[in-house]
């Protein structure tokens, strides 16, 4: 049963990943990527890595891909010029790719990383919480890299703000508070003036 589920999700994953790079419409490609993320999350669930599975869905599907979709929809990229040289360079590309794959299989083939080389991890008990264990490790053994990673995020924030925030003097903006607080006396001035007469 479990194997059947695994093969089902793997097949969907491979199909979706293939569609990501072959789909003509970029929006379709992004949606297939979402599908790929969902199925890989399911595979992780099968491996008892439920925390990673949930984070993948929350962060990648929930945040990153939505942003991606926005960008793809807003930019309206014309992909035709990007694909122009594709057929011309295809033979060379395929040749190089085949060589690289062949070399890599020869060097790090299944005899080193195959199913026989790795011992199957024992199944955890039902009450075992992957999230709790990860949290414990992150804040004890891995606290130093964890902190460094947080500093990297801080730098990313500082850099993004430093490179994009501009204070333009002289731009006009609404001050809603003052608009609402305004009364008639400030805006309308009644002027009494003598009626005009036509000159003779």
């Amino acid at each position, binding site marked *: 049963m479990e194997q059947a589920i695994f093969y089902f999700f793997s097949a969907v994953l491979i199909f979706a990943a293939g569609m990501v790079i072959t789909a003509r419409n970029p929006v379709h490609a992004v949606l297939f990527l979402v599908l790929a993320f969902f199925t890989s999350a399911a595979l992780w669930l099968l491996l008892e890595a439920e925390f990673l599975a949930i984070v993948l869905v929350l962060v990648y599907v929930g945040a990153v891909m939505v942003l991606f979709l926005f960008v793809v929809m807003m930019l309206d990229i014309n992909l035709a010029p990007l694909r122009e040289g594709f057929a011309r360079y295809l033979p060379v590309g395929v040749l190089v790719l085949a060589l690289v794959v062949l070399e890599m299989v020869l060097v*790090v083939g299944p005899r080193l990383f195959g199913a026989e080389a790795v011992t199957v991890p024992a199944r955890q008990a039902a009450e075992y919480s992957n999230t709790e264990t990860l949290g414990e490790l992150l804040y004890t053994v891995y606290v*130093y890299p964890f902190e460094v990673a947080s500093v990297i995020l801080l730098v990313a924030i500082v*850099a993004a703000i430093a490179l994009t925030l501009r204070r333009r003097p002289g731009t006009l903006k609404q001050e809603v508070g003052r608009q609402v607080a305004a009364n008639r006396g400030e805006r309308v001035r009644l002027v009494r003036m003598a009626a005009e007469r036509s000159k003779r």
Partner: protein
Amino acid sequence: MSFEVPQFSPALPEMFVLAMACLVLVLDLFLNDRTRVVTYLLSQATLVGAAVLSLGQYGAGTAVTFSGMFVADDVGHVLKAFIYLTVFLAFLYSRDYLRVRELLRGEFFVLGLFAVLGMMVMISARNLLLVYLGLELLSLSLYALVAFNRDSSQASEAAMKYFVTGALASGMLLYGMSMLYGATGSLDLARVAESTAAGEGGLVFQFGLVFLVVGIGFKFGAVPFHMWVPDVYEGAPTPVTLFVGSAPKVAAFAMVIRLLAEGLGGLQPHWEGLLVVLVILSLAVGNVIAIAQTNLKRMLAYSTISHMGFLLLGVLSGTAMGYSAAMFYAVTYALTAAGGFGMIILLSRNGFEADRLEDFRGLGARSPWFAFIMLVLMFSMAGVPPTVGFYAKLAVLQAAVGADLVWLAVVAVVFSVIGAFYYLRVVRLMYFEPAQDAAPLEAGGDLRLVISANGLALLALGIFPGALFAVCNSAFGL
């Protein structure tokens, strides 16, 4: 699970720099352009304080903490001290330049301090994860610094190129690391060292090693992974070029020592061959293409490439003597590069960049003293005695000869003679050509004083190299 609270004291300099960088970041929000000097002074104070903390630990032996991920040893303390020194110089040279061009914002110093922190993490890393995280922290800060002058399209282009090639290099490095992890089941460099010494893993290690060396080559800017160097050096604002071209080279040296020498020491015969290729290509391409440059920043970029070839020449012999020579080379090169780019800043003024070779024409008549300092800097880069560059090259060549690589040492000497041409051309322009530009130098007193000290220090270290050699030797147990 049982867990022992790690010992925090060996990481005191890192914690100090992080705390101060955050403090500067927040404090800067409350300052305006007139009081921004506080940011600058606090950043410099941070570097001085960190230097006191790091040097205070010097000679106290090797301490490992944070579950074996952090190591504090003498190599680390000395390298960190030189990083503080070069960044101190970089900040000092930059301040007036940035202020005049209305680029003096607190983020320059904050990102600089975070880059320092990244370099410190790299230097103290004893785990593949931390080598990578430190490198990313450094690189991310540098990408932002290169793009710092956001109204300049040239700077944006340089930052974009740097970012893309840097991301590619990080990918290569990570792939190599994943192979090491696959072979050993551990990210701990000590554990990796054990299994390479025991001859386990075999082909997977060598496969991962190739990717590690490619990643390292990118970060060093060694040929054939050098494409980003000239564009980034030329496109970035000069103070940022000064920053990118000096201290990170010391950190890159530390990364090589931690990864190749300590982690993969058992594979030395394998990475020696890979590095030989990088060394020969870097020396050849760097020195020959530099001759054709008319922009000084670009010329110094190609000169950096050739210097990185020399540095790797010291490392590849795989002996303690070679590492010590390479360390001497890295720290003295960082100081020389800081001085070289400092001179461009010194001669520049608002609306005018003195980054063409032409701009140095007749400097000997305009300002004999600074022409002399530039002469010392150029001699040091070319390796003319009695400057420190000569001893650095000599030590590296000695190490290569000591490791029976006489032919490689001969190649290096031939190319450094070719390289001498373009350094001496600057000297010729300064002394034997009439000045075109008679404007007086505008630089402030602190810049004049410190750049003089920088140049004289290279001369002094060249005449008395013994003390620094002793420090480098003792760091590697010689």
